[in-house]
């Protein structure tokens, strides 16, 4: 782990974002974000489509390059070219809307790939860990199945198990339930809920307002590339201060 950046973040801060800007060509998607997230905090990011929520999330593990600003994650300064991104990413799990399971591998192989390739665990240990993780997401019997044989909800639970296999400190969820049939949303949310209860630091981009209200320590409302309003679920959902927020909530609630 890097030590150099620890002093730049306040005590207990897991993610520190300052002045984050991101443009795709001439289109500025993020227009200066400042966010502090402390250890164990669950932050839900809500907002209309095109507000920049997903881009914000993808900047946190540098799947998208930032155009300006600073991001310090788990003590690593992502703007520092000498930082080993592969190392940083092992501290940050990410779950995608479309699961992105590896179709040519079994469920078990999907989960074991990173720990084994990164030489974090022996094959036998990785297998034991993978089985444990599958138990945890309730899919122990699917170990040898191929992704194509699973339902959407099962796929997403496997994807969560896969990102947990490298033992991350932070989990990022990018609309993890948006591609699911309604009856499968619950099983995935339950896994995320369990993780929250265990004290995992999480940033969750979601359209599930009920879930955000229930699980989040803090809710961030984004629109047009800026943070319009943030607060506890009670504050944000119960007493939104901004017209933009009220307008959005009136449409989705």
């Amino acid at each position, binding site marked *: 782990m890097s030590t150099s950046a620890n002093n730049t973040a306040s005590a207990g801060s897991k993610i520190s974002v300052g002045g984050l800007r991101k443009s795709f060509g001439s289109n500025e998607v993020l227009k200066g974000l400042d966010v502090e997230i402390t250890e164990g905090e669950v932050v839900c990011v809500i907002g209309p489509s095109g507000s920049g929520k997903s881009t914000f999330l993808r900047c946190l593990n540098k799947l998208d390059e930032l155009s300006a600003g600073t991001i310090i994650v788990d003590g690593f300064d992502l703007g520092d070219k000498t930082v080993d991104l592969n*190392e940083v*990413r092992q501290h940050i799990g*990410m779950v995608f809307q479309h699961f*992105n399971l*590896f179709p*040519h591998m079994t469920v078990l192989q999907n989960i074991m790939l*990173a720990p084994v390739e990164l030489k974090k665990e022996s094959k036998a240990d990785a297998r034991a860990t993978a089985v444990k993780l599958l138990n945890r997401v309730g899919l122990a019997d699917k170990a040898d199945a191929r992704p194509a044989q699973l339902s959407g909800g099962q796929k997403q639970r496997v*994807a969560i198990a*896969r990102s947990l296999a490298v033992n991350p400190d932070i989990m990022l969820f990018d609309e993890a339930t948006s591609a699911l049939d309604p009856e499968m949303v619950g099983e995935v949310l339950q896994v995320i809920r369990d993780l929250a209860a265990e004290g995992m630091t999480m940033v969750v981009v979601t359209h599930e307002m009920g879930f955000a209200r229930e699980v989040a320590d803090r809710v961030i409302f984004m629109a047009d590339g800026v943070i319009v309003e943030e607060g506890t679920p009670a504050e944000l959902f119960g007493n939104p201060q901004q017209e933009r927020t009220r307008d959005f909530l009136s449409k989705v609630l």
Partner: protein
Amino acid sequence: MFRTGKLTVAVTALLALTGGVLGVSAAAASQPSTAVTGETYVIGTDTTFAPFEYREDGELTGIDMDLIRGIAANQGFTVEIKSLGFDAALQALQSNQVDGVIAGMSITDERKLVFDFSDPYFDSGVQMAVAEGNTEITKYADLAGETVVAKRGSEGETFANSIKNEYNFTVKALADSATMYDDVKAGNSVAVFDDYPVLAYGINQNNGLKSVTEKEQGSSYGFAVNKGQNPELLAAFNIGLAELKSGGEYQEILDTYLDAPAASKDTSFFGLLSDSLPALMKGLGLTLLATALSIVIALVLGVLFGFFKVSESRVLRGLASVYVSIFRGTPLLVQAFFFYFGLPQLTGQSIDVLTAGVLTLSLNAGAYMTEIVRGGIQSVDPGQTEAGRSLGLGYVMTMRRVVLPQAVKIMTPSFINQFVMTLKDTSLLAVIGFAELTYQGQQIYASNFRTGETLLIVAALYFIVINLLTMLSNQLDKRFNK
């Protein structure tokens, strides 16, 4: 003989001019023949120019072959014959890779600039022939309003063009004798103008034609050495030729090929099949060898440049794009000519036909493979890469474990397709004299004139081999890419 080799001739003429300026002397003619006794000379010749040189049961035979061997025996030297093809033989002579060339070559002023010629050993000339059953055309005047055929760049074409206005007919040019004869038999042309010995030989071999006019006086064939080189060999050839002529052997040789009635051969289809199969199988072997070598090299090139194409480096992407656009943007045939004829003239380094052929095919197929690899990699959902990278796997590892296994599966059918294309493309190498399957077929009908049947057999062999290999590839694809 005046066949193609325009490139060779052009460069030859250029070299000749410089040679002339430098004052390279003409050979001293009358050296004592003892100078050659016991020596071994390498003689280049054409592959097939019946009846001067062609293969019978795998052995080189013909007027030129009997003549050079007879003269060698007479003068006490030995010859090692290299069947190179006409253009290649001339090139080899210029670069002193062979000591002499005998290939039914007309003595022309242009060629005299670069080579020293022996005394003429054969007086050729153009003659007209028509289909066996044709009774209407017996003289040039009967050609009015009709189309005749002649070999492109040959004396026959020159002659036909010189009289076409007088007799009011049209001249069409084709590449080789067998095709011309078929054209006449099929009725597309009413008559053919060809070198008289070639025509006489064909008629002897029952090619379905008959000659109806006397031959026109034409050029003479000569044996050639490189300008200023091997004067003793040239002298020995002249003396030997004179002695064979006075001893009667010379006439015997000519009679053997030009006057003797056709050997009674098995003319059934199965006779042709069993006669031609050994040569065709040899050709098929070379076809498969060239295909295998080319496809392996093309695969390596394709993977390399395919990765360049998807890399983040603009230089590498540019490099790959240039490579692909050059080899996709020019015809394979031009590439083959370039590597076989052009490159040696630019580098001064001769190149054997297999190397040139494999170079052509692999670079060409490599360009298509590059696009297949690029397409395969890019058709894998980018989410796959993101998932791999977000787990902390590096670029190479993500490629190797996540993207490529899926890309290969997508690419395999295209690979099989390219493999088949390359196998078929080997047939184009016949034009540079690579002795693969098509070439062997051409050799066979060049001497037996059974074009249709021979090509049918050649096509059937391609068909069988390609379909067997496709079936095998699909099986492997199914097994490994479930």
